[in-house]
């Protein structure tokens, strides 16, 4: 019965809320909450609530803030009081505004341009943020997991024990179904450490994003950029002569040089652009997928509070639950895609044209 009513009740309730005066307030609050959760933060907050007297209580712990502003400035993020107060260090005032640190005067005034963007100076921020902490924790977890897996081989005569039994097939899958077919039997070995590390790193951080701690590391553009740049660097540094020949001379010997000139005016820039587009697609894909997942789940959870009805709220709960299950799949899928495509690019870069060698061999005979 509920399911029958549901689809019809859904748009009606939404419309009611849009017209309602009270709902608008709650909606902006949810919107801010979601956008806050998508961003990195300077303290590790577990949860927060508002007391009856309107005071915000944050449960969590502060993290160190490291700024480069004519000298190194290190202080605890607890000085910001979650953006409510200014931090004063060595006579300089800093304000936390929308998860970014701005340099302000003693009153903490923020100047805006016509697009409502702050025009205050931003010091170089090398703070140990929540995301950095999560990267560190993930790194430790991975190191512990896989070094113990490595040790279990020696102890147990080549057979993994414990949790390694779960991870070993995944390691083998990456080797046999991602690296080998895409890179090739001869050259896949040197790329294995990077592929394995990046796969588990993205997967684990995606999974951490599913926890209620509000972590969004892989949905952060700086993180995905760093990962994609690593892929880009490795691709081009391990590129063979054939790969670079293909970049600058894509048509090979199929045309005489004077025929190539007009084509190459267009072709070579496209090939060059392709070099950058490949890792760029990697970083945008991972970022957008994780960001979108977090927004959808956040919105669906927010809907429960907007509906506050016996039909709408359970429905949006069910929807949020279903999306959450899909997100678990997406977490694995995105890690897989990133690894797969990296392997594919490595494969292109390290490719050597076999027929050339065969030809040489024929001449030698």
């Amino acid at each position, binding site marked *: 019965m509920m399911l029958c009513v549901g689809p019809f009740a859904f748009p009606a309730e939404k419309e009611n809320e849009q017209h309602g005066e009270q709902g608008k307030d709650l909606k902006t609050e949810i919107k801010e909450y979601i956008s806050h959760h998508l961003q990195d933060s300077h303290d590790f907050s577990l949860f927060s609530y508002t007391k009856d007297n309107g005071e915000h209580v944050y449960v969590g712990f502060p993290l160190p803030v490291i700024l480069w502003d004519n000298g190194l400035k290190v202080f605890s993020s607890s000085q910001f009081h979650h953006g409510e107060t200014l931090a004063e260090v060595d006579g300089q005032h800093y304000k936390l505004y929308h998860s970014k640190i701005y340099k302000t005067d003693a009153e903490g005034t923020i100047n805006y341009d016509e697009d409502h963007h702050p025009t205050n100076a931003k010091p170089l921020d090398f703070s140990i943020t929540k995301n*950095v902490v999560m990267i560190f924790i993930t790194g430790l977890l991975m190191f512990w997991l896989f070094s113990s897996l490595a040790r279990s081989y020696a102890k147990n005569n080549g057979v993994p024990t414990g949790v390694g039994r779960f991870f070993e097939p995944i390691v083998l899958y990456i080797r046999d179904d991602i690296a080998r077919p895409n890179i090739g039997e001869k050259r896949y070995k040197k790329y294995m450490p990077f592929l394995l590390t990046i796969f588990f790193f993205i997967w684990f951080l995606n999974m951490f994003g599913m926890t209620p701690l509000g972590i969004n590391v892989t949905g952060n553009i700086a993180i995905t950029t760093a990962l994609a740049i690593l892929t880009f660097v490795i691709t081009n540094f391990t590129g063979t002569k054939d790969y670079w020949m293909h970049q600058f001379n894509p048509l090979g010997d199929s045309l005489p040089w004077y025929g190539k000139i007009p084509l190459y005016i267009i072709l070579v820039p496209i090939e060059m652009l392709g070099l950058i587009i490949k890792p760029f697609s990697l970083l945008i894909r991972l970022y957008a997928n994780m960001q979108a997942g977090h927004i959808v789940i956040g919105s669906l959870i927010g809907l429960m509070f907007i509906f506050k009805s016996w039909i709408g709220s359970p429905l949006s709960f069910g929807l949020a639950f279903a999306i959450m299950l899909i997100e678990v799949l997406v977490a694995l899928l995105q890690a897989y895609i990133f690894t797969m495509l990296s392997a594919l690019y490595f494969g292109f870069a390290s490719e050597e044209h076999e027929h050339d060698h065969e030809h040489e061999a024929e001449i030698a005979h």
Partner: protein
Amino acid sequence: MEKLLEEFSLGLFFWQTLLFVLLLLLLYKYAWKPILNAVNDREEGIKNALDAAEAAKKEMQNVTADSEKLLKEARAERDALLKEAREIKEGIISEAKEQSKIEGDKIIKQAQAAIESEKKAAVADIKAQVANLSLDIAEKVIKEELSDKKKQQKLVEDMLGDIKLN
């Protein structure tokens, strides 16, 4: 795009790159290298064991084939031996038959010869005895008939006729 650029945090980028590269190096040394080596060794071991099993199987097949061949040879040899024995047996039997036949013929011939000679001896003996008897009879007749000349003549003539008839 502008929003993305604004969201980009250089500090986070720095920490991510640093920590990730560090993690990559550490995992390479302490995890991926030993794991991949161990897995490789294990796979190599399995492959070797399978190869060895295959080789053993082939060896077994060879051994079986060999033994079968041996068995076949033995059987053929046995058959040949049996055939030979049968031939020998038949040869012996036929030879014996021939020998016995020759021997028998010989004995029969000897016996015939003996009988012939006996017969001859007997005939000779009988002739001698008849001669003696004739002489005796002749003596007696002569003694009796000498008194009567006519009778004497007749007797001699009869006797001679008898002998001729004989």
